[in-house]
């Protein structure tokens, strides 16, 4: 049933996010640390396990698939709710402090990627 997939996704989301909240509290900061990441890993592990045990059927999968396909439209909605007006009228320092570090990080990516690939076993 489709709801099983959605419920499984919800279970991973809730568990991961709560873990992230606690981790943030534990290290003393007022933010969720890696909640989405934990949820993603949990979902992958559970799906892996369910497939091996043959508990997994395609309709369950489509309950998750639907939300993963909704991702881009949701991101478009997110873009439409950013405070773009404040950002573009915020002055030169804010613009430079936003763009210059990002550009430098962009160009550091191929080096780190190559370096780490060389040390990753195939």
């Amino acid at each position, binding site marked *: 049933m489709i709801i099983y997939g959605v419920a499984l996704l*919800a279970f991973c989301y809730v568990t991961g996010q709560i873990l992230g909240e606690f981790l943030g509290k534990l290290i003393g900061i007022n933010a969720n*640390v890696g909640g989405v990441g934990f949820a993603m890993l949990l979902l992958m592990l559970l799906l892996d396990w369910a497939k091996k045990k043959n508990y997994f059927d395609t309709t369950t999968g489509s309950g998750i*698939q639907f939300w993963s396909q909704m*991702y881009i439209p949701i991101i478009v909605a997110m873009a439409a709710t950013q405070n773009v007006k404040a950002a*573009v009228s915020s002055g030169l320092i804010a613009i430079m402090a936003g763009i210059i570090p990002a550009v430098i990080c962009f160009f550091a990516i191929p080096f780190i990627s190559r370096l780490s690939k060389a040390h990753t076993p195939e």
Partner: protein
Amino acid sequence: MEIISKFIEKNGLVFAFLVVGLIMFISDIISKRLTNKKIPAAAIAIIIGLILAYIGGRYSNGEKGIADIKLFSGIGIMGGSMLRDFAIVATAMGASLLVMRRTGWAGIVSLLLGVFLSFTVGVFVALLGGYTDAVSLTTIGAGACTYIVGPVTGTAIGAGSDVIALSIAAGVIKAIFVAIGTPFIAKYIGLNNPHTAMVFGGMIGTNTGVMAGLAATDPKLVPYGALTATFYTGLGCLLCPSVFYLVLRIFFK
């Protein structure tokens, strides 16, 4: 007319599905007819979204883009953090556990480096802008990480509200820049495989930017970049007001 607008306000989320669907449809046509598929439809849709956010901000003087216009308040629910994070977790379904396990350490290295590099360059920009006190420098440097790290750090070390506002603005600009820039820069930085996507998520970090940028570049890469990026803000909130601030205090008042 009043009946219609009242109805739409009450059914905001469903109306948002319709509006976003139309944006996607228009973007698809623009992508195919005007750019010969060179610019992905998702990238065009995100840019249209940002333009709508600007118009919404101009019109309403609010902080939530188009969602501050009552008629479009449902877009705020659709694009809010709950549905966004729910959908991003779902994308993990298509990701390979093996690849993540193998490149996980590269993700951790890029996270540490990404926070450090963004912070350092941000501090230099703040210096150029004439800030010389450790608190303001740290807050603006933190803003160069993400728009959450900036205010969290600024509040923790007691920065002024003008500097905190500046750090939020810097973070939002970074997110917008990454969202728009990533699909265009992807081929020059080799962003076409899961390994590089994990490094990308760690180096750039801003959730909004990484998720939108990867979605516009190649949806298959989204879960890998998102996995590392989701730790970035937490790491930044941890390092900026503590270690980085203390180091800056040695050099500045």
